């Protein structure tokens, strides 16, 4: 077995040192009746060639997004990841290191976490950010719990245009707390009013921007109403590239910002691993969940970094911790940090501008397809179209032609009414003009 260094001779010598006759002497605390006596019904070990062949055969049963014309977004976006990113995250010093609990020999990880936290704070327009959560949806759930701790209030107002999976992750995380969720219905045409739901028991309002239908939303007024009522505003961002083109949530008065960070540095990976970005105001830092990296000095007075404020965390506070999170998305955060370092302000602005431009191109083309209407007056790189027939069937028809037309709104909100014909369409810098032409032609035919 290529991964196991011990030889039979080693094992005998080691057993002799231990004073055991056979390996099972070391398993003597396992109740005899429970020990497996027959081999399990699983295959035996295989060589690298055989395993690679078997796994490649499984991979070949999928249609990679890059092998199709893909216009799917809705919380995960196909962006170009520079080659340098994957090179860095495959360095063994990053890939095979642990959580930096021994800072003297983990400064590499700690420094990039400090840089990551800074990038996230800058991008979101907030004061501080943590060292990542599992994904945007779990970060959103943690934001709600944090708002409840800060305000000691129970009611949580959730926009109907929050990605339904994020809404559901919040519901699952709060199911066994005394939270009162006030969840709106999806409003594909916009016009949702949240202000009237805020009362003296409201802990926070959760609103997505751009929303799950792609529409941009100025939440400044909402932030003011929240603050006047003693509630917090949580802004959710599923497409973090948008922050290169639009006003940051921090500028609009958000108290907590949670984002899916996958778009920067991370591939689609069928939904994970991704990384949750979590940013807030400095005054709330001791109520934050997750790891935080901070600057300090070493015994020689040199700048260095450590994990800090860990009295919030489970390994110190146990049942009184702000969250049970331990492992986070470290390596995905590194991918984000490297990609963002390559982009810089200039690169991110250009990337965002190109995404937006290509989305306007497709929106204009789709609006010329007979029977198809673009619903959005505003959008970044994702928008919603109303088709003359149910979107789910159209998506299937086009998928057979290797065109991923978008996400039928009914897949995200199967329980909602009036969304049957709605399709959420995303465009990134990876979308070619030719793919857009093919898409529009196929759609014209499919809705005829």
């Amino acid at each position, binding site marked *: *077995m290529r991964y196991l*260094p011990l030889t039979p001779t*080693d094992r005998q010598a080691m057993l002799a040192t231990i004073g055991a006759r056979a390996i099972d002497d070391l398993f003597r605390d396992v*109740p005899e009746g429970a020990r497996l006596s027959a081999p399990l019904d699983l295959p035996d070990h295989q060589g690298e060639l055989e395993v690679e062949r078997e796994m490649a055969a499984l991979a070949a049963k999928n249609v990679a997004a890059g092998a199709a014309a893909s216009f799917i977004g809705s919380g995960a976006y196909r962006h170009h990841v520079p080659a340098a990113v994957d090179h860095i995250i495959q360095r063994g010093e*990053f890939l095979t290191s642990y959580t930096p609990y021994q800072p003297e020999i*983990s400064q590499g990880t700690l420094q990039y976490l400090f840089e990551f936290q800074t990038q996230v704070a800058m991008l979101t327009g907030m004061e501080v950010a943590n060292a*990542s959560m599992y994904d945007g949806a779990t970060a959103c759930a943690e934001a709600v719990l944090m708002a409840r701790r800060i305000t000691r209030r129970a009611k949580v107002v959730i926009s109907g245009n929050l990605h339904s999976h994020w809404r559901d992750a919040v*519901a699952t995380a709060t199911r066994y707390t005394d939270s009162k969720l006030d969840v709106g219905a999806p409003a594909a045409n916009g016009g949702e009013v949240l202000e009237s739901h805020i009362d003296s028991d409201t802990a926070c309002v959760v609103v997505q921007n751009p929303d799950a239908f792609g529409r941009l939303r100025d939440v400044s007024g909402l932030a003011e109403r929240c603050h006047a009522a003693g509630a917090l505003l949580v802004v959710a961002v599923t497409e973090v590239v948008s922050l290169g083109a639009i006003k940051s949530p921090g500028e609009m008065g958000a108290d907590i910002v949670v984002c899916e960070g996958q778009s920067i540095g991370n591939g689609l990976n069928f939904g994970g691993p991704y990384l949750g970005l979590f940013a807030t105001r400095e005054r709330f830092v001791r109520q934050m969940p997750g790891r935080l990296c901070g600057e*300090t000095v070493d*015994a020689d007075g040199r700048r260095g970094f450590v994990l800090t404020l860990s009295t919030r965390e489970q390994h110190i506070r146990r049942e009184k911790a702000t969250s049970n999170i331990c492992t986070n998305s470290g390596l995905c955060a590194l991918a984000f940090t490297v990609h963002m370092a390559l982009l810089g302000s200039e690169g991110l602005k250009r990337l965002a501008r190109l995404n937006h431009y290509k989305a306007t191109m497709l929106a204009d083309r789709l609006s010329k397809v007979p029977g198809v209407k673009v619903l959005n007056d505003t959008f970044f790189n994702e928008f919603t179209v109303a088709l003359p027939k149910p979107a789910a069937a159209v998506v299937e028809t086009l998928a057979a032609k290797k065109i991923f037309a978008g996400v039928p709104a009914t897949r995200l909100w199967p329980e909602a009414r009036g969304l049957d014909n709605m399709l959420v369409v995303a465009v990134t810098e990876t979308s070619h003009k030719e793919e857009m032409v093919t898409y529009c032609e196929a759609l014209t035919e499919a809705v005829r």
Partner: protein
Amino acid sequence: MSTNPPAAPSAVPSTFTGNKALQIEEPLLFEQDSPGRTGVDIPDPPPFQHRLGGLARVTPLGLPGLSEPQVIRHFTRLSQKNYAIDAGIFPLGSCTMKHNPRLNEKVARLPGFADIHPLQPVSTVQGALELMDTLAHWLKTLTGLPAIALAPAAGAHGEFCGMATIRAAHAAAGQNRMRVLVPESAHGTNPATAAALGYHVEAIPANERGRVDVAALKAKLGPDVAAIMVTNPNTCGLFEDEIVAIAEATHAAGAYFYCDGANFNAIVGKVRPADLGIDVMHMNLHKTFSTPHGGGGPGSGPVALAAALAPFAPLPWVVHGDKGFNLIETATGEASRSIGRMKAFHGQMGMFVRALTYMLSHGRDGLKQVAEDAVLNANYLLARLKGELSPAFPGICMHEALFDDRFLDGTGVSTLDFAKAMIDEGFHPTTIYFPLVVHGAMLMEPTETESKASLDQFADALLSLARRAKSNGEPFHSAPTMSPRRRLDETRAARTPVLRWRPSAPKQAAE
């Protein structure tokens, strides 16, 4: 640990640059900014009418501009300040730092896995769903439990999943049980998880053999207990040898037996948790099945569930349909009792690919050998060290060896000092001060991927350190002296938190 004794001045000579040969000082990205520079070439689109309404960004982002060579050099230099399994033994108890096979990395990057969108039509992702189904089949076979929830993103997320199914099952049965019993030696995530589900957490004391005190457990069991959460093998590196009695007493009280499977690597392929009376157990794919720890994540925490808990498994479910595999994404039909969705999408697919590759490589015979060699290596370290260090408990251990600080009595050297001295010897320290039930604990888990020569080198170094500590403890207080940084002032970091870089005042004014 936050108290750092003042360290003696460094014995290492200083240089003009502050560099020490291969150890190169590296400023922050933000300190290397040249405004307008970028490490990507992205074309500028022609002029067009934007659709951003009134929300176009006008304020500067403030992100630094660097070229690709600068970025590569920056992160390469940072990487060289990290210890890693690739570089040496990483004996962190309860963390399972084993070799990460590179085939797993290669396979995870196949476009058929890495470049598929979670919301693609299911007809285009049949291979991905088959992979999830196959992984679940392996995990079912290895645990003996009939259902697997793949959604959880890490161990603690898996704990939430498992305990939520317990809470849902009791509620469905009309039972109001609000107490959860957790051993004192448990990982902090266990009580934190139970509390997040609204449970009242009570500690079960350990007996003098480092195991659950069964009499104390029985005294605490009652009609209001929802579950016990027990790690097995436990965090002292010991198998709970009275586990059958524990399970029987728990079930007799109408409670469920949650097992923290963080240490499954010690028994995988040797014993099935279901045969021990366990009802639900999460597994850390980043421990037992060797997906890389990546400096703190990502992990993956699938949960094995007994039949009584399976109906409450989180969304989505992978099921067999008429046209192949299908995804159930809403709590309707057969999934109507699900606890719901735990994260945005289906689970940590990238980790599933790596874990299944690992399983196929090892097979049933290799996985059994993994457990045996992990336990053999830990016992070998225990045997080599017990003359100079003080084992916390007599007898054998499972996959990790636990020592207390009695061997340092009277030396003035603390567990922390001893651990820091390991750094100068070129090793990552063991886990220290955990589990909490042992004074000055040092928990060492070598894993099965260390050779005998590596273990001997580590043991020889620790024996030497122990002898030195006993003869002259003084140098230990200032260790480490040769690492990229010496001891860091954690008190200062916590008292006046600096959690991000900020532009200095003059530069800000210039913007």
